[in-house]
């Protein structure tokens, strides 16, 4: 997130060794120490700032850690994943049956088909108004949108000051729940849709098209 100018110094060969390098375990252990206390994904840039090394070094170290955790015959019980614009430790999926007993999750209530379809429209057309969602789905979506708001999967987009309509977009929590780094990782809509965007004046050149 915060790209400090000082951090770039670390990548210069022969540059003074950062304080973290002098500690047992070095940069990788330093990264792990911070990963232990975060409660949302942390960007490599933020880690670089905290640890006073370059973002490039942090990213490389994160990749090494990820490979170590996943390593070969004896992977660790946790994994390091990059999603929603940052890095975070997760329990390894195979152990979900054991871990799930310790996790209380209000999200386990499944989304209805209507909620899923509405979420899909918002994800691909964001920012988008309720009226447009309703036009695509052919039904009123007011209560479904409210459900998605309550669950933190979408939020109101910052007012563009032009149209009066409230626009909705997905949250970083949505990305976390889907394990995505950004909305650009959503799969393309069916390629069977040439020109459909024209019909209702949708933006064909939208990045999500």
């Amino acid at each position, binding site marked *: 997130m915060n790209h400090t100018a000082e951090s770039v110094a670390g990548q210069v060969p022969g540059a003074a060794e950062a304080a973290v390098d002098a500690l047992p375990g070095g940069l990788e252990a330093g990264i792990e120490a911070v*990963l*232990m*206390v*975060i*409660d949302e994904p942390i960007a490599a840039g933020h880690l670089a700032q905290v640890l006073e090394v370059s973002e490039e070094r942090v990213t490389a170290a994160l990749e090494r850690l990820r490979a170590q955790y996943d390593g070969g015959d004896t992977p660790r019980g*946790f*994994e390091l*994943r990059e999603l929603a614009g940052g890095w*975070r*430790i*997760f*329990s*390894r*999926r195979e152990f*979900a049956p054991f*871990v*799930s007993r310790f*996790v209380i*999750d209000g*999200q*386990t209530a499944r*989304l209805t*088909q*209507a909620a*899923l*379809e509405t*979420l*899909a*429209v918002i*994800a*691909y057309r964001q920012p988008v108004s309720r009226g447009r969602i309703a036009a*695509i*789905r*052919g*039904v*009123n979506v007011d*209560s479904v949108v*409210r459900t998605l708001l309550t669950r933190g999967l979408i939020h109101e987009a910052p007012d563009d000051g032009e149209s009066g309509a409230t626009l909705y977009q997905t949250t970083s929590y949505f990305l*976390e*729940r*889907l*394990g*995505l780094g950004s909305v650009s990782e*959503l*799969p393309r*809509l*069916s390629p*069977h*849709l040439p*020109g*459909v965007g024209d*019909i*209702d004046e949708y933006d064909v050149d939208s990045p999500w098209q």
Partner: protein
Amino acid sequence: MTAPAAENTATGRIVTDDSAGGFRVSLENFSGPFDLLLSLIAKREMDITQVAMAEVTDEFIAYLKLLRGRAGSKALDETTEFLVIASTLLDLKAARLLPGSDIENDEDMALLEARDLLFARLLQYKAFKHAAGWIAGKLHEEATSFPRQAGLEAHFAALLPELVFKTTPEALAQLAATALAPKAAAPTEVGTGHLHGGTVSVREQAGILAALLKEHRSLSFAALIADAASHLEVVARFLALLEMYREQVIAFSQDAPLDALNVRWLEPDADWDPAALEEEYEPAAAEPPETSTTSAQAIQGENP
């Protein structure tokens, strides 16, 4: 892409009933007209791009009838959406049934445009439905991976900047009330009270007016509506006055524009009867209850 047929099976809404020589639709949970249309197309195993929509039109209309019969089960605007699509489908079907007319007239063009628009919207909906399936799969898959969120250890927590806490007890109570309030349930009934607003009979109001005028001979309009219980009654009395004027039992007088309107009884014959009024303002004779209501309920009963 997920086969529409599979989606149809998964939702299991369409039930073909050969013995009845027709089909039945279990009324639960099409999330919209596009959803239903896709299912019908899948059932006919038709390519969505083929011009064979007429074949599903009957079923769509039948579904609509059941929908209408199930009183208040759908929001009004939702039903309206179904109607819009049904009318488009009917147009398409009619065009197919009529003997080949001139191709290039405006109506045909409009029809083709309507058809293309409908197809385009259907295709679009289908794509989003597919995307929704992908999202559901990812959500399910990711639900097995739990993030570490152990929180700050005590010695780090002590470093946190002093909490800025300006919430008042009243604001907190408001938050609690909002959080604890029952979630707004989906309306189970479409309110039609505003459409009927209780029955106010013009003829009945005319009777009241006649009695008043017989007694006082001449009254202002304001006096005549002084005891009206609602706007609707005021309107009914005004309509009644117009009727009575046409019947030549009363006369109007107004000294200046926007001045008070005075109504005078003309005593045409002593026993003028408001029953003589025409019935054009009366509600249509009560129709027997929709038969489809009962049949829809019966079907629900079979498919709980």
